[in-house]
């Protein structure tokens, strides 16, 4: 293990990788500060640019953006009561109240330290969990993989939005879009409609840029420009350092947030957003003074902020060990791996140890950079908030288009961004969640491959899958997830029935 860690650090501390790490965490923080622009859109924007860099540097930068966003989102939550990122929504509740009481520095400080501690915990767990999990993954065959992917997708669909049918539809639609292009087994072109650019399928990056980045731009264009009103904050180093009492009150919330966040991060569809909400609910329940929550309790900032960072790291576990994305950001990271012809998964550790350990150790470096950067530079980042959204919109568009053009040096990339942008915009209006679509689109070819191989293995008898215990368990979980809303409705009806009868009699 020690040799591997040294190997990883020697790669991640190379000057060029250090520079990419710094670039990633800084961009991530800025993206987190800007309301609306999330990690998905920004990673999608930068994905094409990673063609020009080596894979390790590219993944280091993109991962830096991902966990940097969790830090940055806190700043707007605390100072403006506007979450820069979905995972920091819950921080608004007590963070903003603390800021109103003149304790913005302490709120931001404990968030930064809590995030650092939780991030480090997540990395250590990732280091210990990833190698044994990769070994287990190697023992799994196509049926188990297929069942695991179905379970992962089901979880994302189950957790993604209010309407189960709509989420399920988007998941299946993503899988369908994934079938466009060359068939992975026979090499036949499917649904190409004679269009040359569709022969290799739809590119992930312009599609994600459109669905998330450009759709966001449309929202910015539609929004009314408001005056930025945020609370003035003392940003001197001494004023952002939490005092002894703050530490005492935050220690257990940080610990609990780190553990629960990591577990939530591993689960497909769980992620940072849910981790922060669960942590807040848990802290409130465990607190001796739950009435303090909502009025500026530091535990309400420390717990969720730790949980969202730990979850961000936890999401790397299924990616690096199974090659399966736990959320949309991880799906985009798979795209970066694929651009360079590397398949993330159980073989990554064996075939590419420098890359594997380099990514993990870079997270240590990134976390330290974030702490050094964020605590003294909060004041500077706050100034970015003053850029009006109507100026941001065309700038984001230009970056989107240049990124899309650079993929094949063709304007067809730009057209894909526009078409998927319009689709993403309409999906928002019609309340369809694009997250299952993108995740299914990435998983589609892998799922089809596993399904067809399994069918060949079972000689066409799909029921033979139930002779394999691991696959059966995974499929059982997926089935439960799909029927649970139905069961809940039936139970509700059953309980409400006697009241109805009584009323009539």
């Amino acid at each position, binding site marked *: 293990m020690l040799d591997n860690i040294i190997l990883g650090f020697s790669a991640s501390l190379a000057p060029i990788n250090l520079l990419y790490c710094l670039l990633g965490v800084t961009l991530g923080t800025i993206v987190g500060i800007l309301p609306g622009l999330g990690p998905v859109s920004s990673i999608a924007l930068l994905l094409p*640019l990673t063609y*020009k860099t080596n894979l390790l540097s590219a993944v280091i930068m993109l991962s830096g953006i991902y966990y940097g966003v969790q830090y940055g989102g806190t700043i707007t939550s605390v100072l403006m009561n506007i979450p820069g990122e979905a995972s920091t929504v819950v921080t608004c509740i007590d963070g903003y109240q603390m800021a109103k009481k003149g304790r913005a520095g302490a709120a931001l400080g404990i968030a930064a330290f809590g995030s650092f501690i939780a991030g480090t915990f997540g990395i250590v767990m990732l280091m210990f969990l990833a190698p044994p999990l990769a070994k287990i993954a190697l023992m799994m065959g196509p049926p188990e993989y297929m069942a695991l992917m179905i379970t992962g997708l089901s979880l994302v669909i189950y957790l993604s939005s209010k309407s189960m*049918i*709509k989420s*399920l*539809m988007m998941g*299946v*639609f993503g*899988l*369908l879009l994934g*079938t466009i292009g060359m*068939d992975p*087994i*026979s090499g*036949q072109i*499917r*649904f190409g409609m004679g269009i040359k650019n569709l022969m290799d399928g739809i590119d992930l990056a312009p599609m994600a840029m459109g669905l998330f980045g*450009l759709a966001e*731009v*449309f*929202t910015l*264009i*539609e*929004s009314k*420009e408001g005056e930025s009103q945020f609370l003035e904050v003392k940003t001197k180093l001494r004023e952002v350092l939490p005092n002894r009492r703050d530490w005492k009150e935050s220690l257990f919330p940080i610990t609990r947030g780190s553990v629960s966040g990591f577990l939530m991060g591993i689960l497909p569809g769980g992620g940072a957003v849910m981790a922060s909400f669960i942590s807040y609910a848990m802290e409130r329940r465990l607190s001796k003074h739950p009435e303090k929550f909502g009025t500026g309790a530091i535990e309400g900032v420390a717990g969720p902020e730790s949980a969202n960072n730990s979850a961000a790291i936890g999401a790397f576990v299924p990616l690096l060990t199974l090659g399966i994305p736990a959320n949309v950001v991880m799906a985009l990271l798979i795209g970066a791996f694929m651009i360079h012809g590397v398949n993330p998964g159980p073989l990554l550790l064996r075939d590419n140890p420098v890359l594997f350990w380099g990514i993990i150790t870079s997270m240590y470096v990134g976390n330290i950079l974030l702490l050094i950067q964020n605590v003294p530079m909060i004041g500077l980042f706050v100034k970015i908030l003053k850029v*009006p959204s*109507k*100026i941001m*919109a*065309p*700038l984001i*568009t*230009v970056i989107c*288009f*240049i990124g899309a*053009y*650079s993929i094949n*040096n063709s*304007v067809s990339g*730009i*057209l894909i961004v*526009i078409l998927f*942008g*319009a689709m993403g*915009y309409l999906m*928002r*209006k*019609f*309340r*369809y969640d694009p997250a299952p679509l993108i995740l299914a689109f990435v998983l589609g070819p892998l799922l*089809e491959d596993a*399904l*067809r191989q399994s*069918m*060949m293995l079972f*000689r*066409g008898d799909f029921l033979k899958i139930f002779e394999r215990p691991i696959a059966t368990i995974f499929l059982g979980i997926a089935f439960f997830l799909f029927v649970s809303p139905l069961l809940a409705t039936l139970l509700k009806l059953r309980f409400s029935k006697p009241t109805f009868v009584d009323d009539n009699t």
Partner: protein
Amino acid sequence: MKRRDLVSSLFFLAVGGLFSVGSFNYSIWDQYGPGPGFFPLLLGIIFTILSFLLFIVSSLMKEHKGDELVESDSLNFRIIRKTVIYLVFLFGFYFLFDRLGFLLTILFFMMGVLILFSRKSIKFSLSLSILTSILTYLIFVRLLGVQLPGGILQNLFRFY
């Protein structure tokens, strides 16, 4: 939301049907097992069933009061007008990018959008547009080595 669900379910019903029918152009099952048409056919059928289910559920559903109250959700032309105009700008960008080249396209696009949407002065818009074009050249072309179309300015400045 009921009407939108009905409309979108009908649209997706058609999409599912097209994918299902289109799958028959490829082999569904051969001597080795499932062929290239198998997976899209399976998904097409599931998608069609789900769209039909949404259609049924939304036709039975009652419209809740307040469902349409959120302005950002509105499809009112007053609200989406800006997006439609912006979309025209985007298609303009797409058509001009190869012909005019990246420098001029970005310059015109930024100018147009800034003047029309952020209502900034011509002087400010022009300065920011020129700055964006130059920064695009320096960062993407010079630093990252991205090949962007030089267009009509290529012969004048010889970017590559």
